[in-house]
């Protein structure tokens, strides 16, 4: 395309983006159409990719198409492998896309659609995509080293140790919160529980098919499994209508929590490939299909957003979780804007598959843009509901009241009218007994998704099926995150224990497997149990804790990236990682301060302890006091650890920039590629 035409085209995209953002930001009083968000996001991503990632590629990182990547130099046909860039893109996206970009934006919608949308767009373009891109490139230049190894090499042993502990901490908190979301979605829901229970025999069947009937035909068996899951969703309605069967599949939150802990332990400790690998495939199949379908549904239906741009809860009094829009909107939405966890994936399998350095831009920056688009879809799904309904689903009974009439009266008094009859009709339409107090974000997302699907693909009569499809989709891949996370944490603990006593590090030694699995499940199980028993619904305490841990891991990743950029003598461009790092430090440290010392007991853990101690101390309150003290301690430890990495990093930067330290990056030596003639 010639230059003037290209300039004209980019000019039009910029104007369109600015107009859309203006419409989103300035529109008040009347509902807006979701297409404004879609257009604004598309334009922001296009401009960010074309110009900002282009600037980072050429000026900051100086991507070298002639430098051989580890996939080429160390190719072994297994993990190191030259792979088509689109294939790596798809693989990387499938690995980073999880429940986070769906749940976080749904919870943050209590502030209105504006804060979440702006953070998702700006956070992704200037922070999240940059983090994923630079960490991927730096790992490629270091033979696919992990984030913790790079932190150790470039920042020092403190950096490596803290990164290791941060990964363990985030895994434990993440697994506890993820399990809580599943519990809240499935409690007292025989239809949902039946569907999820049926995925077990379906996965076993898939395992047998894969091993015995058609070895290796995974796509084929995943499609077959998907059809069977759809049949299970269809059958679920009959289970929920039959009193005997419904009783069999109706569980309390506590029972579900225990069942999930047993599942996590079994998944980690036993060689159950027959169940887990097929479930993993099934989950990925459903995940990719549903995200694509949701995108199509939003464009086809282009629904109206009923949630206002800003709600009164920006002041910190929100019922979904307590805390002001700054900093809590920015830690609640993690994966859709920036997620430290992505740095683990960018320094995991992906760098070992990249054929050319220049492809890291598309894979690292591009895949995170796609993830951010998923978060925009989640915001739309949450905001298409009437706000009263959104708050009725997401507010804990401890805030709005135990009975429907009390809950609807409280929510209506906030200016979001809703009636008990409306909620009953909605619950009936989606095949549930009740939708009150279904905290955690998953049920609200499922209602929004069912609304979009049923009105664009099938009509209102299919609302219940779409709702349970959405619940199944979320629960299935949260459970996959749960079993994969438990195993990864187990391996990490075993690796560390192996330094103390060698057999403990052997991944095939059963006493070690059982012990470490029990340790990990007990750790996240404790947080899960705490959430289940929390009168405020659990999400109020645990989701911010998870957000803080995840963003602190991103802080570590950005410290590593800034250190490397400065050592590469590109100090004048260090702002590309330093600015998001500064923002994350401001956000996470402010949020941690509030979670520790805020005088409002709904926000501050220690204030909550004081309130509980002032009342009558029973067995229940003693446990709540301990839980709040534990959450405060975890927050404090995370902040101290990350402060240590920051201090070490600043020392490195100062030493390098002042010439006291030698600026030497620990990259693999340059080797000229043999793939120079191929497409980059």
């Amino acid at each position, binding site marked *: 395309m010639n230059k003037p035409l290209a300039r004209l085209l980019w000019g039009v995209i910029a104007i369109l983006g600015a107009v859309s953002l203006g419409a989103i930001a300035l529109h008040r009083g009347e509902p807006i159409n979701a297409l404004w968000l879609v257009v604004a996001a598309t334009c922001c991503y296009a401009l960010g990719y074309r110009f900002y990632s282009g600037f980072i590629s050429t000026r900051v990182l100086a991507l070298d198409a002639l430098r051989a990547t580890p996939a080429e130099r160390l190719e072994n046909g297994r993990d190191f492998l030259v792979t088509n860039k689109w294939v790596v893109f798809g693989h990387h996206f499938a690995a980073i896309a999880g429940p986070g970009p769906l749940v976080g934006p749904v919870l943050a919608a209590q502030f209105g659609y504006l804060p979440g949308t702006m953070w998702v767009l700006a956070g992704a373009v200037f922070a999240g995509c940059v983090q994923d891109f630079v960490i991927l490139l730096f790992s490629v230049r270091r033979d696919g080293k992990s984030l913790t190894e790079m932190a150790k090499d470039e920042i020092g042993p403190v950096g490596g140790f803290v990164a290791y502990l941060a990964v363990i901490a985030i895994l434990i908190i993440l697994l506890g919160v993820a399990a809580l979301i599943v519990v809240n979605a499935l409690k007292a829901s025989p239809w949902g529980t039946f569907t999820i229970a049926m995925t077990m025999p379906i996965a076993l069947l898939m395992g047998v098919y894969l*091993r015995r009937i058609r070895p*290796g035909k995974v796509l084929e068996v995943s499609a077959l499994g998907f059809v069977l899951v759809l049949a299970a969703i269809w059958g679920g309605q009959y289970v929920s209508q039959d009193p005997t069967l419904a009783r069999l599949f109706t569980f309390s939150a506590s029972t579900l929590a225990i069942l999930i802990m047993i599942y996590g332990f079994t998944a980690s400790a036993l060689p159950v490939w027959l169940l887990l690998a097929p479930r993993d495939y099934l989950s990925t199949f459903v995940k990719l299909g549903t995200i694509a379908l949701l995108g199509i549904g939003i464009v086809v239906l282009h629904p109206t957003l009923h949630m206002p741009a800003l709600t009164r809860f920006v002041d910190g009094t929100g019922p979904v979780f307590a805390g002001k829009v700054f900093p809590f909107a920015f830690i609640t939405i993690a994966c859709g804007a920036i997620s430290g966890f992505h740095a683990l994936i960018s320094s995991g399998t992906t760098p070992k598959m990249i054929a050319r350095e220049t492809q890291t831009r598309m894979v690292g920056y591009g895949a995170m843009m796609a993830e951010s688009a998923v978060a925009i879809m989640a915001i739309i799904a949450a905001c298409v509901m009437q706000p009263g309904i959104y708050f009725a689903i997401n507010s804990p009974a401890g805030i709005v009241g135990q009975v429907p009439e009390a809950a609807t009266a409280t929510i209506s008094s906030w200016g979001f009218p809703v009636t008990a009859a409306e909620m009953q009709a909605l619950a009936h339409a989606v095949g549930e007994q009740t939708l009150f107090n279904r905290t955690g974000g998953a049920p609200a997302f499922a209602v929004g998704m069912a609304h979009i699907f049923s009105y664009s693909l099938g009509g209102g009569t299919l609302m219940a099926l779409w709702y349970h499809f959405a619940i199944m989709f979320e629960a299935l891949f949260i459970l996959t995150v749960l079993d994969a996370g438990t195993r990864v944490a187990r391996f990490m603990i075993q690796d560390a224990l192996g330094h103390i006593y060698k057999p403990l590090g052997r*991944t095939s030694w059963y006493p070690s497997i059982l012990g470490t699995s029990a340790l990990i499940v007990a750790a996240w199980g404790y947080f899960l149990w705490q959430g289940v028993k929390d009168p405020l619904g659990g999400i109020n305490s645990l989701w911010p804790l998870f957000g803080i841990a995840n963003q602190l891991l991103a802080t570590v990743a950005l410290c590593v990236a800034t250190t490397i950029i400065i050592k590469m003598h590109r100090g004048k461009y260090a702002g590309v990682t330093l600015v998001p790092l500064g923002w994350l430090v401001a956000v996470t440290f402010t949020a941690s301060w509030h979670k520790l010392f805020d005088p409002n007991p709904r926000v501050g853990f220690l204030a909550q302890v004081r309130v509980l101690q002032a009342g009558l101390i029973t067995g229940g309150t003693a446990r709540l006091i301990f839980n709040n003290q534990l959450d405060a301690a975890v927050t404090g430890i995370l902040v101290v650890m990350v402060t240590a990495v920051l201090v070490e990093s600043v020392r490195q930067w100062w030493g390098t920039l002042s010439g006291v330290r030698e600026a030497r990056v620990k990259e693999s030596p340059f080797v000229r590629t043999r793939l120079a003639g191929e497409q980059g």
Partner: protein
Amino acid sequence: MTPIQITPIKIMPIKEMMQEFLATALAVLREIFDEAAYARYLKRCGIVSSRGSYAAFRRESEEMRMRLPKCC
């Protein structure tokens, strides 16, 4: 008068574009779902697909897969 030379604009036929898109999409899915890894394993070991070779492939890839975290 010399006739005006018109250079034809080269546009890939839609059928070809669709074929290329579908082939790439299938390659992505085969990679995500480990079918490509299994094909590479068979090629590397010089064996054909069977129950035994798939079981051996699973054993080899099990530990590597089990160490992969899934993002939140």
